[in-house]
């Protein structure tokens, strides 16, 4: 695929849509969770106000270069993921910078933010951050393991590492989705999905009752605003990958919105009604359930 300048504004437009979608949708999900508890919860536009508020704070404390770069890396992880993942299949402009090996790059970007965060949070000097980071790295590594295996399985199945091609292969009906063609890989990948969305039972990284609130403990003001922006973009971007790889992608924005929402709701539904695992319990969980399924997916493909 050749590079064209027009892709830049197209990609930015996609980014913009996804940012807003993310801000609104995370609020809606929070409202749904709140309703289970019996309350209305935050207004849907609350995320915007919080974002503005954090940018509007007057004072900032900097703990060093990496501290500053942490949120930047994190955000670039999210944005990078978006930029290299085709959002709408067949759309002329929402293709972003997808290319033949974009799946590998996407996997890299998923991890990139976490690493950046680790560096930044580590420099903030707060022990809770440090503990959170070490927990995060340990857990995300094991949680991504089934994902990596599932992707491997997929690569074998579809004989490509291009997301667009994988999506294309799933077109033409519900039963062409990877969900049905390679269910074991999907199960393995969903382990990873649930495990990395920072919701119970796999949210020991943030665990407010233990290490409030983990890595971002020291982050505030604009730094926090950057992370909030990322928090709106990154999960959506990640969900898009899963959608593209396993659930047939989206051919238009409506399908996109519905599929992402439903996918996003999976960890939310689990999270609301479960306490969290300890870090070694969740690692054990992924090694015990996720890893074998992933291996099985490769073997049975």
């Amino acid at each position: 695929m050749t590079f064209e300048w027009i892709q830049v504004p197209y990609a930015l437009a996609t980014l913009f849509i996804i940012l807003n979608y993310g801000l609104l949708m995370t609020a809606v999900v929070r409202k749904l969770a709140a309703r289970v508890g019996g309350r209305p919860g935050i207004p849907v536009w609350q995320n915007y106000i919080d974002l503005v508020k954090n940018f509007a704070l007057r004072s900032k404390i900097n703990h060093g270069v990496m501290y500053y770069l942490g949120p930047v890396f994190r955000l670039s992880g999210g944005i990078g993921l978006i930029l290299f993942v085709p959002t709408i299949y067949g759309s002329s402009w929402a293709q972003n910078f997808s290319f033949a090996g974009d799946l590998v790059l996407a996997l890299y970007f998923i991890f990139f933010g976490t690493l950046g965060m680790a560096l930044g949070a580590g420099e903030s000097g707060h022990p809770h951050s440090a503990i959170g980071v070490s927990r995060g790295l340990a857990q995300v590594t094991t949680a991504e393991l089934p994902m990596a295996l599932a992707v491997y399985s997929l690569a074998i199945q579809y004989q490509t590492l291009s997301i667009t091609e994988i999506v294309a292969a799933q077109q033409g009906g519900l039963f062409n989705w990877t969900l049905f063609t390679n269910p074991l890989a999907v199960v393995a990948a969903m382990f990873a999905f649930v495990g990395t969305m920072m919701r119970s039972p796999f949210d020991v990284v943030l665990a407010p009752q233990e290490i409030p609130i983990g890595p971002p403990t020291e982050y505030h003001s604009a730094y926090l605003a950057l992370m909030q922006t990322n928090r709106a973009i990154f999960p959506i971007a990640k969900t898009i990958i899963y959608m593209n790889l396993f659930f047939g992608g989206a051919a238009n924005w409506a399908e996109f919105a519905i599929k992402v929402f439903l996918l996003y709701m999976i960890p939310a539904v689990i999270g609301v009604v479960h306490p969290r695992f300890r870090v070694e319990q969740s690692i054990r969980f992924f090694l015990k359930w996720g890893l074998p399924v992933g291996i099985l997916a490769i073997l049975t493909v």
Partner: protein
Amino acid sequence: MFSFKPDRSQYPAPGPDGKLQIDLETGKYLKLWQGPNHPGITGNMSVELTVCGDEVVEGKTHVGYLHRGFEKLMERRTFIQVFPIVCRVCVPEPDFNEYCYAAAVEDLAGIEAPEYAQWMRTLILEMGRFNSYMMFLGGIGGALGLGITGQWMTYVRDLMLDRFEELTGARIYHMFILPGGVRGHLPEGFEGRMEEVLDTAERYLADIDRVMFSNSVFKTRTKGVGVIDPALFEPYGVTGPNARAGGVAKDLRKDSPYLVYDQLDFEVATATDSDIFARATVRRADVQTSIDLIRQILKKMPKTGPAMAKIPNVLHWKIPRGETYIKGECSRGEYGYYLVTDGTGYPRRINVRGPSYTHAMALLEHLIPGTNISDVAALMVSLHTYPPEIER
């Protein structure tokens, strides 16, 4: 399979005096403060943890953040003036202070509260116990990341607070049990409204059973964690549900019946495992007992009768020299007031024996070493301690 065996070679060795030799400057250990500003801590206190990896090697409880010097302030106040401040000793379950203090004063002054007041006090205490358990069931879920229980239980507690409000005139500090009796009678239609609350509570408790007690993740986190050896109960002064979770069926309501508990019908709940899960289930069963008791009391209590015994003019009430100790089974164990009078209009000394005092200090410090950082909060919540009654 996949069993973790932590590498304990790095851990500090005990020195000649039995204490761990922890040299923070080696960089092997990390000091971690949980609290006072920390969501995982029950109230305003702190635990100073020394961790090695994810494992805690030493824990020290620090209290005093809520110290108001109650026992000193009480010595400065007349017997009636002590009445409004006692309830502040324990915020989530204040009524026990009122009862114990009132009963202690009555004992030394030779006053007998009327029968209606005795029933009313029992009702208030059970309502308070219910509320306290609501805090616990919400808290234990919250400590493990299951925030939804806290939402429901606080809601149910709010409903009960409404009943408190219409009965006593206040939400949190009821100040209803005066030395000599209680301040008023049941309002019109109270039984019906209480029944609604209890029904709602039972519905939500059924949800709690589904989402918490039958939740496999919850079980994984709590079973076998934070076990108190029943042999430690006596040396560490463990009472109440914490002891009952270890199979010790001791409940002052049964063993040393006070108020009208001898006219009520109930069973003492126990469990055997003495771990966090057992402590939670014992309390879950106790909530049901409380609900049943409230229903029984409302059915059996006299409809009318004097609420107050005749007491001397409180502005210059003097009580002859003496000392007494009044105890009761609160939601956390044995609660007691030790009152010493010297014949003047002021108490000579009041000592509050809160169960949290032993549970959160000596016992917690004994239990913490060897646990995972993640379990500290749950362990603490499972002991059900309220800091204000530790430091008073």
